[in-house]
């Protein structure tokens, strides 16, 4: 059973439902507004783009090959965006996250789903992910203990909140396990 983790701890009663076979438009989901009214099932990009304009507070799940910029005009009405890691070696969602947070200024919840493992979480936090779907027990244990295996010194600006330590313009610091 996957658990939702954020830097504030484990989230109980998380309402968001990842649709079964979400990559499949024919999976029985209703398009657009009908899907929103059903509750908290995440919309696909296609469904989100089909919304007629009034809705807000909905969530969208994106695939790694999808262009996040397509959502630009909807972002202020989106409550949560979920990006997916089909395998830990597939790093496209890191760039999608940067575009959403850094370029498009998305300020809502950004969730990592798919293969979320301990050693990737510090990097995901840096590019702006705020919540994580975790079902790997050793990963969850370390996250709960706030023992993330990261580094507090960074050689590049990213989408996270960091301090400028002075010196070279590209350097940043942040306390990971604070």
């Amino acid at each position, binding site marked *: 059973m996957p658990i939702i983790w954020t830097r504030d701890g484990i989230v109980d009663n998380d309402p968001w439902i990842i649709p079964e076979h979400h990559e499949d438009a024919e999976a029985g989901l209703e398009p657009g507004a009908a899907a929103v009214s059903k509750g908290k099932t995440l919309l696909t990009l296609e469904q989100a783009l089909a919304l007629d304009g009034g809705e807000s507070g909905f969530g969208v799940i994106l695939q790694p090959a999808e262009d996040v910029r397509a959502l630009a005009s909807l972002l202020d009405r989106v409550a949560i965006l979920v990006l997916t890691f089909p395998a830990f070696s597939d790093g496209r969602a890191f760039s999608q996250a*940067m575009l959403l947070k850094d370029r498009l200024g998305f300020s809502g919840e950004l969730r990592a789903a798919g293969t979320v493992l301990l050693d990737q979480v510090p990097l995901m936090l840096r590019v702006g992910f705020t919540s994580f779907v975790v079902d790997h027990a*050793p990963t969850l244990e370390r996250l709960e203990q706030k023992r993330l295996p990261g*580094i507090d010194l960074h050689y590049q600006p*990213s989408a996270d909140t960091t301090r400028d330590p002075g010196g070279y*313009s*590209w350097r940043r610091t942040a306390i990971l396990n604070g």
Partner: protein
Amino acid sequence: MYRYDEFDHAFVSQRVSQFRDQVERRLSGDLTEDAFKPLRLMNGVYLQLHAYMLRVAVPYGTLNARQMRKLAHIARTYDRGYGHFTTRQNIQYNWPKLSDMPAILEELAEVEMHAIQTSGNCIRNVTADHFAGAAADEVADPRPYAEILRQWSSVHPEFSFLPRKFKIAVTAAEHDRAAIQVHDIGLQLKSDDAGNLGFAVWIGGGQGRTPILAKKVRDFLPEADLLSYVTAIMRVYNLHGRRDNKYKARIKILVHETGVEQLTSEIEAEWAHLKDGELRLPAADIAAINAYFAPPELGDRAEGWGELAAWKKSDPGFAEWVGRNVAPHRHPDYGMVTISLKPIGGIPGDATAEQMDSVARLAEEFGHDEIRVTHEQNLVLPHVALADLEPLYRALLADGLATANAGLITDIIACPGLDYCALANARSIPVAQEISNRFGDPARQAEIGEFKIKISGCINACGHHHVGHIGILGVEKKGAELYQITLGGSADENASIGEIIGRGFEPERLTDAIETIVDTYLVNRLGSDEKFLDCYRRLGAAPFKTALYDASAQAA
């Protein structure tokens, strides 16, 4: 050279702790080998045929004596007394224990070294011209920019899980000694008419299964835009590079399939958002990094000219070594000395702990404490006074390091091949050794002239065979080793990919075939000043094909 500040020390120390924790979780079973693999690779740890291998970064090939001594110490303490310098200016240890890795990394950190991103699908160690900072023909020292790229790319959150590995090379001379056209990004530092520094930017070069030369996408990128532009390239690649087939995952395939114009316009569109942002390099930061690379104080040593002439006259061996292995420095009283790691019949790129210690000592004594590793698997002392060449030569001779073959036919590049590597299909080292022995006679080598033989034991092309004047690729056919020969490759500013000459050769017939090619060149060249590559480009493959295959058909 660059010196760590507190930030760098703290970073590397935390990186070592992070890796120690990863190793512990692997050993306890919390991490599967599948999940551990990319993590250990990002720290240079491979699982090879017989043992783990550790690849240590030598950023842009620059070392000091203290660092070289540490490399010797690691070879002696944790390995079998030697190390192997690679075509990416790194050093590999072939026999360390996994459980010793964190301790080795801690030892490296003491001398400001690490193994970060020497493997994995991330931005690898940035390489540079091995004569940088000493060559007469460079616009400026390219290493400060390589250092800025090294820092920026270290544990980059967005670019640690790329479709495939990513290699950047920097040079600052028209004559390209860094092979920038066979890198994912090649940067040529240059000056515009107003004297401002910037880069010609090349993308999409690479070797491997599909060798492709890079395409120039920018003729002059101002230096302040270096990080923003490289970020734009990386982001477009990370989002769109192929992930369905590892042999099609390098940026060269994205460039090829998308088309360079289309891809360039995507990169430029991305860059438009980034160029005025946080990544823009302040002039003060560029100047501060440059200050670390200030050249050593090289006082006039004009007495060396007379002494050198006298020594050369009295010792033909010394004269030959100076002629081959010493290149002109931008200070006329100095030379750039290549220390060949290609003894006749030896293993290309290998050095014993004792040899590393000797090089360290000699760098201190004669070389202003600077050492370089070349992508051709040799070492360089970049600042040696002509007046010191004779004692340096004597010392090198005593340590088996005075082979006078830089740039000659026995200065062979070879990957570790099937003797070590888990990916290899065939042996490389014994092939190199046999060719070296065949052509080892100094007079014969001199007669043949400049000649680059490059050998890879599999299609991944770590031995750069595609850009060898003669390239040799080991393949496996029906359970036996077979060697394909390519001719006419080059990695300099007139880069070319070698062409397959015909069917491959069994190991026992390969050296004869190489000799046939060399003899054909000697017969056909216009004179001793027509190099093999020029001769091949003039004549094409036909005479070589005839010599290789018609003759053997007649003999059979």
